[in-house]
């Protein structure tokens, strides 16, 4: 059994705000839900599958299903799968599988939060069995990714200038996005002259911290056919977890080495078929390792691959993150997966900004990374195509 062609992304919506002092987290989830359903030409009355992750306030999917007024006699599929920022990319795959199995036909996925105004404590992490062997040493998100960057540089000669090229490409795209948190184009020099946060990562190697959210609606072929809005076909999905491997962690690769081939195989496409890629960009090093692991270049060649504008739309070899990505546009509630899906949908619909719209794209790849490169991560790869592909 495969999900290839069994489900369609019919609606996508990104919250336009990046700083939200005046709404609750549940309200943000509701706003993006309404936005994505309206984009599809559907309503909350139509939803029979609901997907969210740990950013959703309350008790898994139950609290938000209640808040949103989803019809309790109708909702037949719930999924609170938590894989950090990769969750929402995985959710699209899960929704497609549920639809293929006829468990639901209109699946709503929401993300929302306001980290600029609310500190959400990871209380469950304190009871994780690994906690006292990692967290006591002053780890934070940046330092964990810095450990990976340092080792990648050591093994492959990757440079700070090469990492900076990732940020530069994202910023060139962000300047066309009126909602981008950082809309200004930056240079390699500006990146490497920004202050070191955790060596070798500079401030501008890090993603933005933004309030906001997004939602996606995944539907059955029958529902897609009934809608006037152009939808996007789900071609393949893969996911994986990579962990410290019993203390033998290799910091130079990600779970994309497993999720990527699973998605490519299901979609029956290869790297050469990818016209546009949304690559999770929590940090510049995340992109370098991921493009290697997805097979766009050999292991260790990521730093050289991104030189000469390879990631810059519309004409680079691998146009990526044309909304400006997490590095410049939006990383709502420290979880970028949903915005990665949304921008890929814009590209396939031909609705990205004209300056960064890839000409006539047929196949797009979306990759999410959650958790940490230096401990345990979730990886999810999604391949999307034109409605009639």
């Amino acid at each position, binding site marked *: 059994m495969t999900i290839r062609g069994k489900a369609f992304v019919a609606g996508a919506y990104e919250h336009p705000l990046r700083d939200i002092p005046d709404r609750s987290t549940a309200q943000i989830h509701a706003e993006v839900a309404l936005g994505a359903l309206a984009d599809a030409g559907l309503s909350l009355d139509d939803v029979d599958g609901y997907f969210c992750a740990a950013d959703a306030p309350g008790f898994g999917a139950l609290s938000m299903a209640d808040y949103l007024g989803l019809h309790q006699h109708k909702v037949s599929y719930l999924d609170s799968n938590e894989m950090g920022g990769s969750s929402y990319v995985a959710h699209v795959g899960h929704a497609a599988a549920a639809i293929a199995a006829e468990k639901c036909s209109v699946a709503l996925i929401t993300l929302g939060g306001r980290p600029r105004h609310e500190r959400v404590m990871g209380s469950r992490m304190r009871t994780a069995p690994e906690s006292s062997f990692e967290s006591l040493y002053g780890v934070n998100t*940046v330092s964990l990714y810095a*450990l990976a960057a340092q080792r990648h540089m*050591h093994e492959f000669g990757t440079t700070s200038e090469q990492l900076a090229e990732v940020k530069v490409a994202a910023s060139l795209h962000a300047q066309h996005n009126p909602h981008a948190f950082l809309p200004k184009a930056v240079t390699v020099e500006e990146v490497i002259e920004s202050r070191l946060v955790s060596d070798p990562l500079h401030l501008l190697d890090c993603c933005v911290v933004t309030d906001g959210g997004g939602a996606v609606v995944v539907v059955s072929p029958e529902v897609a056919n009934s809608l006037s809005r152009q939808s996007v076909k789900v071609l393949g999905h893969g996911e994986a977890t990579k962990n410290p491997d019993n203390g033998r962690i290799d*910091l130079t690769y990600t779970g994309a080495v497993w999720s990527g081939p699973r998605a490519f195989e299901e979609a029956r496409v290869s790297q050469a078929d990818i016209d546009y890629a949304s690559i999770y960009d929590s940090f510049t090093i995340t992109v370098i390792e991921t493009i290697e692991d997805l097979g766009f270049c050999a292991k260790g060649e990521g730093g050289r691959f991104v030189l000469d504008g390879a990631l810059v739309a519309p004409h680079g070899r691998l146009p990526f993150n044309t909304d400006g990505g997490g590095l410049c546009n939006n990383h709502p509630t420290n979880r970028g997966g949903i915005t990665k899906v949304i921008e890929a949908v814009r590209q396939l619909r031909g609705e990205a900004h004209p300056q960064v719209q890839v000409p006539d794209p047929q196949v797009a790849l979306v990759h999410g990374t959650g958790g940490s490169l230096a401990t345990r991560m979730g990886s999810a790869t999604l391949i999307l195509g034109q409605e009639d592909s």
Partner: protein
Amino acid sequence: MASYGLPTPTPAVDVETEEFWTATASGRLLLKRCDSCGLVIWYPKSLCPSCHSTSTSWFEAGGDGTVYSFTVSRRGEGPYREAAPFVLAYVELDEGPRLMTNIVDCDVDSVRIGQRVRVVFDDTGEGNALIRFTPA
């Protein structure tokens, strides 16, 4: 035990890790080994992650290792807010496992991948110590 100038948050000790943490108070670094396949296990747990045997035994590590990767953290969070800059590292013990740790008692800008280091025990004041390393 000496102090190394970094915060010493108290570990969450449970029945599975109590022996490990108790040993740190007397300056011993214990590791688990699988009784069935011989694999050295990290972090300490009672299930072998390779062969899935539930029979494991403690043994004392030599305490020497090599820096596998490191970062100079220049912005601490939580209890480390005032501690920056400090070195977060993965140290590969001679027995095999790579441990998340800090490199202490040195110039933070002098740490290098491949550097030899030796374990130190940083007293938490709660009957146990954090496993840190210093240049050998």
